[in-house]
């Protein structure tokens, strides 16, 4: 048995030795260095570009503009709308305009500073409220990117019959992924004339297709390899360096490397969507929720990226993990001239968790109910209807996570003034929302008698390589890990989809199970399970050609109704409850998360150590979201003014793993990556309220904001 064991991660040895080759570490003889010239204006027409000084610099090989793109100058994960290189107009500060290629990094960077660009400024649409009123259009179709609704029952009637109604507004800000390794990659032309790009990425097959479109060559002539990737969290889903590298290789016929500086990563890459959330909750005297009405307004920046995805996912998760008979959600995303907001761990759900969890605590307070009891009363469970009227037929362990937390909650004791406790719950649909999002893989043998797994899944540090191997071993009934992993290369794998939406364990895990089932039948016929050595089977088979077994899985979902979003957008959901103890220093405004109990229903923990690692890391990111992280467009440039939690900011964390098996998942597994983060900020904010009496409705609750709120509270 490999499932449920703490199998050592297959990538750990190289990483502790320092030999793992990250994208930053890749080199080739005669390689060139490329860097991007970016817009210094948030919204402007480009009147003139003078590259003469840059080109005159010794060692500069090329300066490339949109005119040098042989194919389509547009990319996008959902829709193709973002130019690789701006054509006449820039729509955010940091937008790419040119690529400068030089013989060294120093020369390329120096030359990029010598490019002179003349702009004519346009109105800077700095927030979604300005965007919805301004006659200035950021995109031709108007400034509204997306409007999604969730309509269930009759919210108006629900409020009429409510005993208590609570209505508040919440807001969140831009968050940077801040993976330790910035975006980087290397490209070259191989002996077949194919363009090869190895990069720090979450999705190789998608990037292969984007490069092919950019260069107007068939995808078969592009190979994308995932270098060891220093974190992703959604930020390496969009095309980052890959297009520029491929374009530079195409024009120079030489290997080209590109690495973003931290400043460039902050400036040029996507962020978490800031959301403005108006939230109205109604409940009966006994705490039963009667109605929820939510109005979400989001700032998506000037290009789509994952804006529509976040708009919809935020809407369908807006009620939180509770049974609410009457729901009305309006979720709208507006274009602005702020940074492009895209995918980041949770796709809008952590922002909504802040709102629904704060609301629930206020309802509980108004009717004199315990915060844990009100959650238990309304918790989704097997047989419940979600906000989209999906019946939860299977794995739905929210109540078990609440019960896991219960003893600690009941036994909580405040440690003097400034001490407080808060709860946060969440549910999260695994995989993409209401669309097909399949994964494929294949298995074969080596002539020496080992199983070979070909996987296109990008392990970005979360541990999917190890987890998929564990699943395969058990699915094949192998006693040893006699498996070679061939991974992260479009030439040797099938499309597994992106490493996002907490989907790889569940979806790619099922694809592995599917392939394993076929291999198992073959091995059965060959006598493997009655004792014939694999070596002998493979030697005999090698003469005729080793068999290949394809695996495939696409989770069963239904497309949300376009008007009401009713339907079954996800095949399964993860559930969690966090309880956080904080200490607030009322003199300084410093809030410290002291202790967290985090209970997660993961279906089945394939690798307990990995699951805990995700929970701890998610809590850390939640602490950052709640208390310190804030990207300010035009101001934030580096870690000098963007604060990440350090070891000193980290609370003690007790992870509680709940396993309510999911019948459609591999050995019952669901996912945990994003769920680990989602309820933490909400739990912290509720704990701050408990500690100080102050309700923080805007994130982050950093020192200044919290101190100000505490002072205001004293006066009132």
């Amino acid at each position, binding site marked *: 048995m490999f499932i449920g064991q*703490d199998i*050592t*991660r297959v*990538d*750990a*040895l*190289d*990483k*502790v*030795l*320092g*030999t*793992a*080759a*990250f994208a*930053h*570490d890749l080199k080739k003889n005669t390689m060139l260095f490329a860097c991007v010239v970016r817009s210094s204006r948030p919204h402007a027409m480009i009147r003139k570009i003078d590259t003469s000084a840059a080109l005159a610099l010794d060692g500069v090989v090329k300066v490339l503009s949109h005119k040098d793109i042989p194919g389509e100058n547009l990319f996008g994960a959902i829709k193709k709308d973002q130019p690789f290189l701006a054509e006449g107009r820039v729509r955010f500060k940091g937008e790419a305009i040119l690529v400068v290629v030089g013989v060294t990094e120093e020369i390329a960077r120096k030359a990029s500073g010598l490019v002179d660009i003349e702009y004519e400024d346009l109105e800077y649409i700095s927030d979604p409220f300005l965007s919805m009123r301004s006659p200035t259009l950021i995109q031709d179709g108007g400034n509204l990117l997306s409007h999604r609704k969730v309509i269930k029952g009759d919210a108006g009637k629900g409020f009429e019959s409510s005993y208590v109604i609570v209505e508040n507004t919440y807001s969140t800000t831009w968050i940077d*992924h*801040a*993976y*330790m*390794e*910035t975006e980087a990659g290397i490209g070259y032309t191989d002996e077949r004339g194919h363009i090869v790009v190895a990069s720090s990425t979450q999705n190789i097959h998608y990037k292969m297709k984007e490069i092919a479109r950019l260069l107007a060559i068939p995808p078969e002539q592009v190979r994308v390899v995932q270098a*060891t*990737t*220093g*974190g992703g*969290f959604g930020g390496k889903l969009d095309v980052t360096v890959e297009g520029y590298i491929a374009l530079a290789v195409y024009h120079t016929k030489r290997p080209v490397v590109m690495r973003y*500086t*931290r400043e460039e990563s902050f400036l040029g890459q996507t962020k978490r969507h800031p959301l403005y959330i108006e939230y109205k909750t109604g409940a009966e005297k006994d705490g039963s929720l009667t109605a929820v009405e939510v109005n979400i307004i989001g700032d998506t920046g000037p290009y789509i990226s994952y804006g529509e995805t976040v708009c919809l996912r935020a809407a369908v998760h807006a009620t939180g993990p509770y049974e609410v008979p009457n729901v009305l959600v309006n979720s709208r995303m507006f274009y602005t001239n702020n940074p492009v907001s895209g995918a980041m761990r949770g796709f809008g759900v952590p922002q909504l968790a802040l709102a629904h969890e704060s609301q629930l605590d206020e309802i509980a307070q108004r009717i004199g109910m315990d915060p844990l009891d009100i959650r238990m009363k309304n918790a989704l469970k097997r047989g419940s209807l979600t906000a989209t009227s999906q019946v939860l037929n299977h794995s739905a362990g929210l109540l078990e996570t609440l019960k896991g937390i219960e003893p600690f909650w009941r036994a909580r004791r405040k440690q003097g003034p400034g001490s407080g406790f808060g709860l946060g719950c969440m549910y999260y649909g695994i995989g993409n929302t209401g669309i097909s999002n399949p994964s494929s893989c294949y298995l074969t043998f080596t002539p020496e008698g080992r199983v070979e797994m070909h996987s296109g899944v990008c392990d*970005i*540090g*979360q*541990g999917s390589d190890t987890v998929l191997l564990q699943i395969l071993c058990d699915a094949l009934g192998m006693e040893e890990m006699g498996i070679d992993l061939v991974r992260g290369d479009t030439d040797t794998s099938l499309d597994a989809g992106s490493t996002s939406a907490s989907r790889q364990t569940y979806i790619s895990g099922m694809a592995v199970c599917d392939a394993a089932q076929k291999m198992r039948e073959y091995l059965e016929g060959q006598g493997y399970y009655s004792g014939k050595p694999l070596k002998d089977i493979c030697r005999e088979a090698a003469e005729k050609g080793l068999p290949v077994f394809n695996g495939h899985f696409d989770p069963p979902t239904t497309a949300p109704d376009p008007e009401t979003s009713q339907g079954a957008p996800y095949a399964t959901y993860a559930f969690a409850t966090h309880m956080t103890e904080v200490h607030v220093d009322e003199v300084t405004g410093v809030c410290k998360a002291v202790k967290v109990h985090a209970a997660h229903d993961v279906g089945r923990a394939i690798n307990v*150590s*990995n699951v*805990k*690692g995700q929970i*701890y*890391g*998610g*809590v*850390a*990111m939640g602490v950052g979201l709640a208390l310190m992280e804030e990207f300010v467009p035009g101001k934030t440039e*580096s*870690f*000098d003014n963007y604060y*990440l*939690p*350090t*070891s*000193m900011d*980290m609370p003690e*964390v007790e992870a509680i793993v709940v396993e309510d098996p999911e019948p459609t998942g591999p050995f019952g597994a669901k996912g945990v990556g994003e769920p680990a983060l989602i309820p933490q900020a909400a739990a912290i904010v509720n704990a701050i309220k408990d500690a100080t009496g102050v309700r923080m409705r805007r994130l982050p609750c950093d020192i200044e904001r919290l101190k100000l709120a505490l002072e205001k509270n004293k006066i009132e």
Partner: protein
Amino acid sequence: MKTISFVLNGKKTSIEVDDNETLLGALRERLGITSVKEGCGIGECGTCTVLVDDEPHYSCLTLASKANGRDIKTVEYLSSSGVLHPLQEAFIKSGAVQCGYCTPGMLLCAYSLLLKNADPDARDIKEAISGNLCRCTGYIQIEEAIKNAAEICKCDR
């Protein structure tokens, strides 16, 4: 350009460096030691940590010329005897490694800590790695690994 000599992972080394060259650049570009990572370039993240005379330094803020005559250690030193250091073993076993980009710097800070303090408590460990950012792990399994390795190192003594 000037020639500097130092001990790198136990071996005498001489290289030519520019006056304004960082130790990070010299190690990565001239000596091919890519275990030393660049994360921010301004001494905020700690992925470029090296030990100078067994003390952690941000190599992105250290001029290469300052290494002259000093003892420089990178993560390669920990396994230079051909076996994994207990810290490396513990990092693997405790799940302290996720993306791995901060790992070499974390290991070096931990190594430096254990040289000075064979029996660190939880607070000592937190402080020792507080200048090194990790975005994946929440530090907990890293701290567990350091604690476990300290126990093993004590027994080995």
